[in-house]
């Protein structure tokens, strides 16, 4: 028996393409997150909810623009009874909240329950990268839900403007930074808390229920505390109404008032305080999620 050995080429070829390293791994995780929350490349029933919510978000914008078109054709002097950007954020905010409540558990819980985190950690992907890629996915899609109908309305109304399309685009150009700002506020307000709850819950359904319950019940109780108590510092309990904080900021961005006064407005806080609370909650929630995943991965 000899000591030498030989490997015959039976058709196996080692991979000789690019190895994209850490950036590639982050990009792939981010893209996978987007696909996952939208049900892309998954079974048909995984698409039903996200695309139904997307339709709910888009349809009113189409209706608004369509109505404006009809008005411009048949009653050009009349003003459209609906269709301000500010109002639309209030409307879509609720739908985006529901979407985030469903999508956040979908992003984090299956990887933990199905035991595939070790696959991520065996790649050039740090725990922080994984968390930030998942955040990025949810933020992107949530922001898209808010932004796309706004863009449709912006260009749709401009197209119907009596002064001409480009003129309307220019004169309404001030709406663009406001749209972007309001989109960012809503997305950042809703996403981190949902991901935090999805980090500690073991079941998707429980995470969804706890997230929605926390926001709803928190809003109601904080409104009760702000309105009806005389205890010192009661106004600060308005900060517990997480679900209403972006609405308060949205009102300030557009210079409008929402249909129901928010607890923060009732407590007499300026919108920048709501913005500060949103930012603080986002940072704290993100740090907790990162800490937890550093232990898991």
């Amino acid at each position, binding site marked *: 028996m000899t000591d030498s050995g030989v490997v015959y080429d039976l058709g196996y070829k080692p991979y000789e393409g690019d190895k994209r390293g850490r950036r590639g791994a982050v990009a792939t995780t981010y893209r996978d997150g987007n696909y996952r929350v939208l049900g892309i490349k998954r079974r048909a029933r995984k698409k039903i*909810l996200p695309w139904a919510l997307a339709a709910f978000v888009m349809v009113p914008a189409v209706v608004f623009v369509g109505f404006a078109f009809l008005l411009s054709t048949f009653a050009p002097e009349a003003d459209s009874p609906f269709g301000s950007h500010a109002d639309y954020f209030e409307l879509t905010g609720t739908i985006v909240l529901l979407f985030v409540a*469903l999508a956040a558990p979908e992003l984090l819980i299956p990887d933990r329950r199905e035991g595939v985190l070790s696959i991520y950690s065996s790649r050039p992907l740090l725990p922080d990268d994984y968390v930030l890629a998942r955040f990025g996915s949810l933020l992107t899609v949530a922001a898209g839900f808010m932004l796309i109908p706004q863009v449709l309305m912006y260009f749709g109304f401009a197209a119907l403007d009596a002064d001409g399309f480009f003129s309307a685009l220019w004169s309404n150009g001030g709406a663009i930074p406001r749209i972007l700002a309001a989109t960012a506020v809503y997305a950042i307000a809703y996403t981190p808390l949902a991901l935090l709850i999805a980090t*500690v819950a073991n*079941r*998707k*359904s*429980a995470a*969804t*229920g*706890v997230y*929605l*319950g*926390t926001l*709803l*019940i928190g809003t*109601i*109780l904080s409104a*009760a*505390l702000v309105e*009806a*108590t*005389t*205890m010192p510092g*009661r106004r600060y309990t308005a900060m517990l109404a997480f679900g209403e904080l972006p609405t308060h900021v949205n009102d300030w961005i557009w210079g409008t008032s929402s249909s129901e006064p928010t607890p923060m407005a009732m407590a007499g806080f300026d919108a920048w305080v709501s913005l500060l609370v949103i930012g603080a909650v986002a940072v704290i929630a993100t740090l907790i999620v990162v800490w937890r995943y550093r232990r898991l991965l």
Partner: protein
Amino acid sequence: MRPAWAITVATVRQVLTLRRAIVFGLAEASPALVYLLVANTLSDEAALDRLGFMILIVYFPLLVPIVSLIVASGVLGAERRDGTLSFLVLRPIPRWVIAAAKAAAAVIVAGGLNAFGALALTVSYAVETGNWNLVVPLVVGGVLASIIYAAIFVPLGFFTDRAVLVGLLFVFVFENGIVTALRGLSALSPWRTGFSAFIALAPPDLLTGEDLAETPVELISLSTAALWTALAALVSVALVALVLRNRDLTSE
């Protein structure tokens, strides 16, 4: 009896982990804490008014349904999805006993948590006003509503892993939307059945006719509420037993 009790205890332990007990406990106690802060400078009448707000806006329409549906939908559905259902069904136990034991676990946990919430709220009221007459009525009302929610969501949790979402739609769109607009459908709303039981057991001077007209509830009698509850529980157990007996219990 022993296997049934073992299933119930094991399920309660599985569903009510320490973390969940803390989270749900805090959620159930929060209306009471807020009430204590709100009511300490109010007259008895105003305190009652505030309590009514907590009961009719927070406790029954939000807290009881959300806690109940999260708990109940996981009791049987989780076993199927986790792959432990075969452990349970390959036993010489009648299927209805398994179904009843699981339902009992859901009622113990959901009913227990909601009873705690009711207790906390009414004890807060009693501490403020000295009136202890609402403790038992609200506990009974909360438990009855929990039983009906469990009856609906234990089987639903088996059929779909989106049971909580379906439940939230049921609560927010149907119960708190459609039935609020159409009071005549109150009998189809579990929390309204619980609320009716609460009103039936509470002192008769609690709500005036005018107060009642403003609530989104068409009241039913205590006996009707109890009957609905028992019927819902029986139908639920029978349905689950039928499914365990006839349906394929694992996928391909």
